[in-house]
């Protein structure tokens, strides 16, 4: 049984009794849903196999393609930051399976509330990757219409979006619709009050929302042990809904578990917490220096669990993909990188008056006044260079 039920905590031992051996040795992995081992072997899972039972070789290649292209996009953006074209970048390197697996589990009418690292989920939702770069280049603070792909704006304040997701899901329930919401957040966000409040609200109102926590082990320099003393997925039981831990580097398992959770939501069975146990291979953002707080060996150990390599091994071993497929994908990947480079470099600075745009939907007298002052000030430079001494 992988789904956390309402197993009661062990009672405190009474005075005089001997400490008995714990069920699991300290530090042992709690149950982890896995369908594809790090070695690329397909393993059975009685509970979740059903959710990927009918997956076709073409769909498997599709998942692989998504992960490869997402990684390529991410690498290109990291390079562009290093070249001074982006002010900052939050890399998803290592989290491709968690994002593609969960993202591909969503239906078109579902709604996604991301943090600022869900580039792979955005890809699954059909958001043009170029749209994600505007805020990192500094030409806008969001930049896309959330309703065109049901993919909300990136949220930088940690955990805030889990409440927006819950509210949106409450709205879906009110509308009598059968779509669902998925909210992304990280292990660090699990410490935020808003995340706790979103668990409370979603449970109380039975909201159709899936909380998808990517536990990538580090919140900048703080390890997960600084956020919690219990495995994160176990938090759910205290709120009265199921929590499950999935191998976040296993795209099939992420797909299956998220589908299961979304279907529960659609059936009116309320929220689920999915903890995707994964690893952030790179820095928190390009401003971060992980060599200051974590050991190389740790990264190396996780490299062996690489989400892309394990699916490739499986595709090759099961004859689901040939050399031609990988060569074609390589070319597609190059083309994507080139396009991203070109799009970023061609991205124009916004018009100066964008400062005042959309501050309010219905307008605001002070904004109008200050826009006019700004215009007059800008206009005062019109004669400059004609010897006019100010």
């Amino acid at each position: 049984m992988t789904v956390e039920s309402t197993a009661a905590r062990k009672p405190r031992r009474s005075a005089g009794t001997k400490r008995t051996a714990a069920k699991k040795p300290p530090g042992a992995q709690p149950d982890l849903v896995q369908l594809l081992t790090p070695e690329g072997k397909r393993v059975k899972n009685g509970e979740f196999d059903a959710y990927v039972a009918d997956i076709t070789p073409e769909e498997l290649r599709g998942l692989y393609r998504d992960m490869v292209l997402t990684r390529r996009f991410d690498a290109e953006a990291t390079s562009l930051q290093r070249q001074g074209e982006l002010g900052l970048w939050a890399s998803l390197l290592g989290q491709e399976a968690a994002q593609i697996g969960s993202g591909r589990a969503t239906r078109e009418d579902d709604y996604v509330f991301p943090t600022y690292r869900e580039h792979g989920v955005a890809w699954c939702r059909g958001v043009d990757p170029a749209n994600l770069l505007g805020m990192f280049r500094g030409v806008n603070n969001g930049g896309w219409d959330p309703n065109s792909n049901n993919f909300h704006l990136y949220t930088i304040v940690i955990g805030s979006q889990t409440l927006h997701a819950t509210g949106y899901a409450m709205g879906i329930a009110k509308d009598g619709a059968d779509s669902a919401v998925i909210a992304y957040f990280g292990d660090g966000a699990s410490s935020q009050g808003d995340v706790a409040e979103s668990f409370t609200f979603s449970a109380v109102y039975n909201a159709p929302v899936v909380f998808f926590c990517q536990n990538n082990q580090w919140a900048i320099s703080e390890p997960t042990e600084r956020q919690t003393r219990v495995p994160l997925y176990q938090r759910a039981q205290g709120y009265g809904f199921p929590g499950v831990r999935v191998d976040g580097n296993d795209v099939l398992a992420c797909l299956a578990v998220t589908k299961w959770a979304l279907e529960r939501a659609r059936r009116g069975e309320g929220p689920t917490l999915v903890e995707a146990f994964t690893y952030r291979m790179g820095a928190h953002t390009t401003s971060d220096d992980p060599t200051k707080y974590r050991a190389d060996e740790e990264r190396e150990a996780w490299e062996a669990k690489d989400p892309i390599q394990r699916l490739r091994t499986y595709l090759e071993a099961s004859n689901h993909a040939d050399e031609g497929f990988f060569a074609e994908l390589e070319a597609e990947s190059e083309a994507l990188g080139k396009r991203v480079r070109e799009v970023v470099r061609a991205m124009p600075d916004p018009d100066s008056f964008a400062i005042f745009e959309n501050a309010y939907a219905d307008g605001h007298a002070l904004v109008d006044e200050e826009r006019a002052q700004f215009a007059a000030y800008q206009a005062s430079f019109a004669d400059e260079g004609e010897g006019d001494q100010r």
Partner: protein
Amino acid sequence: MTAEKMALAKAINESLRTALDSDPKVLIMGEDVGKLGGVFRVTDGLQKDFGEDRVIDTPLAESGIVGTAIGLALRGYRPVVEIQFDGFVFPAYDQIVTQLAKMHARALGKIKLPVVIRIPYGGGIGAVEHHSESPEALFAHVAGLKVVSPSNAGDAYWMMQQAIHSDDPVIFFEPKRRYWDKSEVNREAIPGPLHKARVVREGTDLTLAAYGPMVKVCQEAAAAAQEEGKSLEVLDLRSMSPIDFDAVQASVEKTRRLVVVHEAPVFLGTGAEIAARITERSFYHLEAPVLRVGGYHAPYPPARLEDEYLPGLDRVLDAVDRSLAY
């Protein structure tokens, strides 16, 4: 009969009822707003008539109330949330400032956040700590929010209608010590714009500008001053963001003197902003510096001292005398 007399709290209740009745997307949310009808009974009877799906009792979590209201607004609803008391809004301040205020701009105008946040505010009811504050400047300072406060029942009815219809988030400060004051509500009137100030008493010697609970104090001050032969104009600002500076300027250029009165601390407050703007706009019309009367730079005091803290008739008239002495 088109006008009826009712208490300010009742006027808001009637306004919410009208909104719930006319638009199925309007929701009421908050702690104790359902069966109890709110601790001030402003939502009294609404859950009974519109159901638990429209008038929603929430968990005791302010950030959760505002955060989920944002999500509901994104889904197409128009939530009107109640924060039980002024001092309890701060757990939700992050959601209001970092999310609610900015989301429309971040989406380049593609989404709207029609959320109304009702906050009973201000002192004068002998309450305990965190139940008597006036934090309006903290909200007015944030671009993306609109901040209003009615001073009487008629305004409260219409301003609530307008706030709910607004596609921008509106912080609706309700002067709790005026909840039981009665005045006329004309449901068939054509109300003025939400952010327009109103001259509630004409005068020629000095302008008193106030909003919310202080409008009544200023009206009383003007009546007292008249007995001393002074003619004071009283302006009800009604909105702290935006502020109707044109109305203040017009009044000041007639009376040439201005005293701004509010319960909130004077330092960096609404009055400071008005003093600065009016000095800039009407420098050559002023016979005296713009004076401010308000709270002190101190925590809101215990109830037994609040009469010292809150501007009353004497403090307003003292400022009037100081202005006229220039």
